[in-house]
């Protein structure tokens, strides 16, 4: 049922998880290390068969801590590396996600969210890892997180995640959920030469050139060029605060300089990273802000509200992080209220609240099933009354 080609150009009927795996392959992923966990297992399962077919490496690790460490290592050696997990595994990855941030190791982590905390609801949907994606590892840092709302978007966003990871040298997250992961729809895979591919920035210095400082960001984008293990450069890569040479420099000044640069390379480029879809926002009095599977319920709720004559619209977040705060602020000049449905007890709503002084109403469920459109519609009606 699969060919041996890396990019399966054509139309397919795929569940979101399988689409994530095919997105990775199409993006040029050549290394996957993971530990199977419902509801993400189909990603590992698919890649365990497909990666060896195309000359890539699939490794099942002893746990998620090791999985994350392995993809960081593969990344430093030049591979496009990814892993996939769900909440409990995502928690275990957090320490090494911080390591990837500090070492500036580009990599992709797919989190197919299920009901939580802890092992929670293994087979049922949740969206309660979205704050963890931003803040789960200790320290100040910036990452990018995408939220697919269909199998097609799962495919597309994994490709985008690889490109964003390589562009900014960061771990990038694809925050899927059980509903999207286990729902099949048509997925169109373009020809291989039409898959966008961002190349890592490479050093302008030859190996052995002593003026080369591997962690010096010479360009305006604050991203240092990346050397790969085995290319002849002598590079120290350290989790400790390091100077531009990469050597430990555990003092206040270099620490502040490094941490600020790591955050600034995302913050100052946020306008190029942030993505969202706008539906019926032009005249919207009520703006629903939603993402992932819940955005599909929100789309229905907005359509039903329009049928009742309520001017409702949908701001569908494609990037959760960085957050589209500027857009919320702009919408505040015309809209009177915001409704934020989520399969958690109120996480992204805190971000919406930061960018508007209008009422922001949460529609929340702790998870276990996709949210029906009705409670979202009720909230829309309520705020216009």
């Amino acid at each position, binding site marked *: 049922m699969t060919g041996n080609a890396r990019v399966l150009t054509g139309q397919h009927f795929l569940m979101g998880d399988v689409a994530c795996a095919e997105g990775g392959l199409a993006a040029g992923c050549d290394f996957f290390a993971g530990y199977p966990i419902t509801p993400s297992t189909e990603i590992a399962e698919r890649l365990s068969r497909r990666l060896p077919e195309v000359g890539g490496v699939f490794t099942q690790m002893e746990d998620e801590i090791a999985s994350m460490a392995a993809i960081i290592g593969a990344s430093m050696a030049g591979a496009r590396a990814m892993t996939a997990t769900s909440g409990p595994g995502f928690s275990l990855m957090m320490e090494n996600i911080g390591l990837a941030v500090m070492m500036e190791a580009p990599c992709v982590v797919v989190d197919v969210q299920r009901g939580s905390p802890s092992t929670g609801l293994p087979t049922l949907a949740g969206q309660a890892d979205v704050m963890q994606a931003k803040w789960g590892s200790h320290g100040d840092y910036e990452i990018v997180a995408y939220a697919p709302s269909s199998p097609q978007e799962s495919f597309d966003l994994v490709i985008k995640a690889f490109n964003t990871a390589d562009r900014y040298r960061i771990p990038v997250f694809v925050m899927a959920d059980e509903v999207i992961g286990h729902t099949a729809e048509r997925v169109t895979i373009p020809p291989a030469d039409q898959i966008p591919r961002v190349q890592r920035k490479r050093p302008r210095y030859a190996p052995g050139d002593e003026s080369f400082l591997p962690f010096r960001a010479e360009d305006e984008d604050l991203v240092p060029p990346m050397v790969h293990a085995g290319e002849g450069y002598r590079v120290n890569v350290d989790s400790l605060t390091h100077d531009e040479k990469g050597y430990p420099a555990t003092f206040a000044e270099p620490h502040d300089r490094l941490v600020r640069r790591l955050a600034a390379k995302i913050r100052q480029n946020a306008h190029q990273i942030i993505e969202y879809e706008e539906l019926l926002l032009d005249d919207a009095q009520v703006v629903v802000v939603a993402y992932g599977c819940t955005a599909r319920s929100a789309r229905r709720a907005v359509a039903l509200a329009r049928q009742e004559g309520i001017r409702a619209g949908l701001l569908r977040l494609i990037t959760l992080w960085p957050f589209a705060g500027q857009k919320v602020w702009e919408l505040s000049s015309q809209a009177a209220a915001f409704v934020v449905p989520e399969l958690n007890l109120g996480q992204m709503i805190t971000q919406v609240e930061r960018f508007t002084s209008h009422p922001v109403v949460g529609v929340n469920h702790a998870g276990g099933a*996709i949210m029906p459109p009705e409670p979202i519609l009720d909230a829309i009606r309520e705020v216009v009354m």
Partner: protein
Amino acid sequence: MRRELRLAGFGGQGIILAGYILGKAAALYDGKEAVFSQSYGPEARGGACAAAVIISDEAIDYPVVTRPDYLVLMSQEAFTIYGPLVNEGGIVIMDRDLVETTTEGERIYRVPFTRLAEELGNRIVANMVMLGALAAATDVVGREAMEESIRTSVRERTVPLNLKAFAAGYDYLAQGEAA
């Protein structure tokens, strides 16, 4: 127009594969939008399981089947759970040997899916008999689209048997043998 279908039975009957083939037929070979999802118990075989398929001419927003327009039942348990949930005016097709009921109606079809499959030599293709009956009783997906979807979804060497089973289910209803 949006139409919702539910296929229900127990694990091992190929319900999930049937739902996948149905959704794929609509989405890839019939020019429609389609969503397929599944639910099943913790057991792989023997537990209740159900496939949900939505087929529409337009983009599908909310991907959940609530009151199906077409309901297929392949076990007594499925009948108990899902039987009452069919939409008003909906069509129900059930395995006449596996579901015991006195419910009658012109929109209820009782087809011996499993028995027809056994007559073809392998009860494992009861799900294809069921898809055939579904294609004959409804216009939700074209016959050719369904056959193409079967061809591209099952192991190559089993394609002839699966297509034969599909035809058996189709002919059973198309020839008006249903009581």
